[in-house]
């Protein structure tokens, strides 16, 4: 049962990874082409800003689940060393952190849902094309919740054994 869940979640995270990759590529291509059209053809592409904003959001919210799943969030771990001497305590610490990550992820999904409902009520639209924004924000909320669900499965499987990969390359 756990194995089939793992296989399923791995496939799903792979799909999200490709969507994130497509999102950032589309972002690059859009900016590149819009600069070309504006300066070379003297004909700016309409609504570049709106599309950039949406693509940025898609890239981020499809990539966040992978960051969470691989435990690659930036972490500081100042006081972690003493825990290493007590494996059971360290495992409990990791399990609690995983639980916290799941809670915060779902909370972020809830925050996005709140924003989507506000946008729906206020009929918030994008700057240029005046597209309704609530469907996009709802999609972001769904992506965050999916990420939280996938990580919950991973955390259940690891039960405190998952290692964090702290740090980031700037």
């Amino acid at each position: 049962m756990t194995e089939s869940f793992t296989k399923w979640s791995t496939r799903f995270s792979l799909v999200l990874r490709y969507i994130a990759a497509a999102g950032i590529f589309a972002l690059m291509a859009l900016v590149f082409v819009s600069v070309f059209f504006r300066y070379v053809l003297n004909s700016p592409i309409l609504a570049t800003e709106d599309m950039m904003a949406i693509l940025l959001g898609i890239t981020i919210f499809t990539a966040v689940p992978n960051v969470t799943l691989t435990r690659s969030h930036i972490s500081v771990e100042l006081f972690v060393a003493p825990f290493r001497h007590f494996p059971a305590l360290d495992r409990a610490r990791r399990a609690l952190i995983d639980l916290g990550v799941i809670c915060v992820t779902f909370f972020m999904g809830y925050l996005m849902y709140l924003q989507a409902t506000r946008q729906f009520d206020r009929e918030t639209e994008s700057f240029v094309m005046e597209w309704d924004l609530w469907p996009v924000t709802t999609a972001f909320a769904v992506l965050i919740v999916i990420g939280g669900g996938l990580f919950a499965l991973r955390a259940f499987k690891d039960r405190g054994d998952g290692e964090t990969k702290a740090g980031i390359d700037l």
Partner: protein
Amino acid sequence: MIDLAIGIVALLLLAGVGFPLGFSLLTVGVAGFALNHPRGLDAAATVAGQQILELAANFQFAVLPLFMLMGVFVTKSGIADNMYDVASKWLGQLRGGLALSTVAACGGMAAISGSSMATAATMTKVAVPAMRRYNYDDAFSAGTVAAGGTIGILIPPSGALIIYGLLSETDIAKLFMAGLVPGVISVLFYIVAIQVVCIIKPEWAPRGDRTTFLQKLISLKDIWSIAALFLLIMGGIFMGVFTASEGGGVGAGGALLIAIMRRRMNLNIFVESLAEAAKLTATVFSVGFGALMLNQFVNIAGAPQEILIFIDQLGFSPWGVVAVILVCFVILGTIIDGPAMIFLTVPIFVPVIDGLALPIEPDLKLIWWGIIMVVTVEISFITPPIGMNVFVIKSMLPDVSLGQIYRGIIAFFIADLARLALFVCFPGIVLWLVRALA
């Protein structure tokens, strides 16, 4: 103020036990805001949602993923080998020439990759074997690469400057302008440090091979495309032809074309690069969400004003306050890695710096501070016990001990402190290009 103090302690505890930094910032930010607002958690949830959405779906912030993508493409295109080859042809025959070449190549890589650890990792592969061939001291070789790599986050385009710009709402194009001169000065300071080491310990860094002027000129053909790309992007941004985001898009597209022209790109590498850049973007933005919420908590708690009143009561001059903050930064940099330091300190210290009566134009004060902050972050990349570049190099050179690498860094660390003092005491150096182009 007491709320903020409790919040910071809670933040350190949460992040310190390994809870992701972004989630720690968000948790403390939301809780602190809720406690300070009459509408409590409702208001905090609304503000937190707005902050996340404003950061994640704002076209102006597309600049970060685009420059990150450019950095990934450039790293994958294998340009580092050519950079080092060119630098060693021009500088190799000097005493300590290969170390000078390493620093120069790091500066060149920095100008296009914007990444510190990637520069250090790439240069370790390229430069250390060459220095070993010429009997360079291992500690000095590793130290040179570790220190040279740090230049990556100061010379534009720089990920650290973009993050600072996003968090402090400072003009990223002006930050890039301001980073250029200090970046070049950093390279010069490292060159002086190498020369001093060569005088004290000549056996550490012998001369390399001589090359003719023609060979030197011919070597430039391998890097002209990257130099042209850098000039196009920075020229475009500085002259106001592109916005910073557009510069990033053109840079990423250009870097992709260069990688294809150099036959270093296939479908697998291409998809991997995109996925890597997307993941980096998500990592940074998820901390950004938390940092912005902490910012809201800091503001609603009235902390910047209270800190300024507190400082006023202590009787420190504005420069005294800057000195105290810098000492805090250097100490903090020894225990927290650089990017985390930016996220943690910008919401707290930027309003304080903004409120100080420093002899700098109000609209340029935060530009200057951004550069100072990034220079301290650079230093944190090579200071023990958590020097990220040192760890990268150690993982790639298992036969060189951490102690040896830190020994090789000493000269560069002194050079770092000297240039930090220079940029603090003479803000005009940092702001010269911004003022000239304004």
